[in-house]
């Protein structure tokens, strides 16, 4: 799907500035290697030279206004400027959920107005549990449901890469983890059935598709039934949000990676009473917010993931 282009809104966002330091990761032989973003921005690494296939943003939480970040619209604006200033524009942007904080119409409206400020017009979304927390669970689907016939999950192809956009925040198990559900797993099976194992696969969903920390619900109960279907593919990149920090894992040909939020950080697993907003000292927030960009480095075998912060 495409967001509604709105040139005047785009222009209004151009005045926002962003910093230039951060961390960049390239995937080399299955191991993420951190590289200073300032070096990468100067074009001194191969990773920075590659045109990003897409950029992932996550957990924008429009509507949040507490101490951890009283201005989440401001940091989203800086994020949009960061993406717009990339030397090579990505073909598309994916948002891995929690667009809003409270599923309010005004929050969705503001988010959509801001997304129109991306120079890249193609935006693909999946809902987070914060986007489906309105009593009727209609606000997200009224705006973003068209791509999926209101199911929320869908697939598409771009640049020789097959994308699966999945929803694991609706069929949650009380007391447990997120879930995809039998119907969605059947959709995935049918969707992948005819695809060659050489097709690079990108899967994105809001909650982690592997169990990072069960007591906080950082995982998806039936994810093993998904990854079993993905194992035969030569290059699988699984991207999630939800936990507002980078956690990654490589398992065979599958790379799992969670993105930073653009709104506020959360504590590492198990630190504190629960996965709430983490207030950090002045000057530290921007270092904990950011985006992930993904490039094809050795088509069709490998994708490189790059994490950049707002600081």
């Amino acid at each position, binding site marked *: 799907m495409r967001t509604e282009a709105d040139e005047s809104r785009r222009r209004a966002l151009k005045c926002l500035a962003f910093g230039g330091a951060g961390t960049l990761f390239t995937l080399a032989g299955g191991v993420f290697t951190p590289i200073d973003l300032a070096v990468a921005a100067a074009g001194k690494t191969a990773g920075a030279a590659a045109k990003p296939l897409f950029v992932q943003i996550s957990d924008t939480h429009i509507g949040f206004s*507490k101490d*951890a970040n009283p201005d989440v619209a401001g940091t989203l604006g800086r994020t949009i400027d960061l993406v717009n200033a990339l030397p090579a524009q990505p073909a598309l942007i994916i948002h891995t959920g929690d667009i809003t*904080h*409270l*599923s*309010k119409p005004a929050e969705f409206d503001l988010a959509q107005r801001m997304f129109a400020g991306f120079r890249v017009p193609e935006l693909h979304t999946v809902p987070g*549990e*914060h986007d*489906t*927390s*309105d*009593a009727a669970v209609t606000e997200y689907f009224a705006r973003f449901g068209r791509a999926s016939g209101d199911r929320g999950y869908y697939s598409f192809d771009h640049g020789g890469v097959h994308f699966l956009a999945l929803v694991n*925040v609706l069929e*949650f*198990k*009380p*007391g*447990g*983890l*997120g879930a995809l559900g039998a119907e969605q797993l059947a959709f995935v099976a049918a969707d992948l059935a005819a695809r060659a194992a050489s097709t690079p696969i990108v899967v994105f969903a809001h909650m982690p598709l592997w169990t990072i920390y069960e*007591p*906080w*619900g950082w995982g998806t109960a039936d994810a093993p039934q998904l990854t079993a279907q993905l194992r035969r593919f030569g290059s699988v990149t699984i991207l999630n949000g939800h936990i507002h920090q980078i956690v990654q894992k490589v398992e065979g040909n599958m790379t799992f990676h969670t993105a930073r939020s653009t709104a506020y950080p959360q504590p590492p697993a198990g630190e504190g*009473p*629960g*996965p*709430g*907003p983490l207030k950090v000292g002045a000057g530290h927030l921007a270092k904990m917010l950011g985006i992930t960009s993904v490039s094809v480095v050795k088509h069709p075998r490998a994708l490189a993931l790059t994490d950049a912060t707002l600081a």
Partner: protein
Amino acid sequence: MRDTPSTPVGLVTRLAAVAVGVLALAGERATPLAATPDPAAVVIARGFMFAPVSLTVAAGSTVSWVNKDDEPHTVVSDSGLFRSGAMDTNQSFAFRFDRPGTYRYACSIHPRMTGTIIVR
């Protein structure tokens, strides 16, 4: 009572007896709210937990949930009977339970947060 300073001792005794009887009845059932619908049955969401995690009320009672966390929470019945919208800090949701039964619920944002309302 202010207008009747000379309250007969017998009336006070009878009232006390009624009060003791109510307390005894409540003790037997372990449900202090079971006698009449409780207008102030409240569950607090704090520290990613519902407290009390199990609450017993009389049929006809309205239960209120109040969020005391910085994170929003919801209250979603397992059976689909009730579903709040997102409650931000200090916001609340109320539902009236007319029929006896055991009603389990969870927060859809933090599904490990669960609770039970028992209606007698």
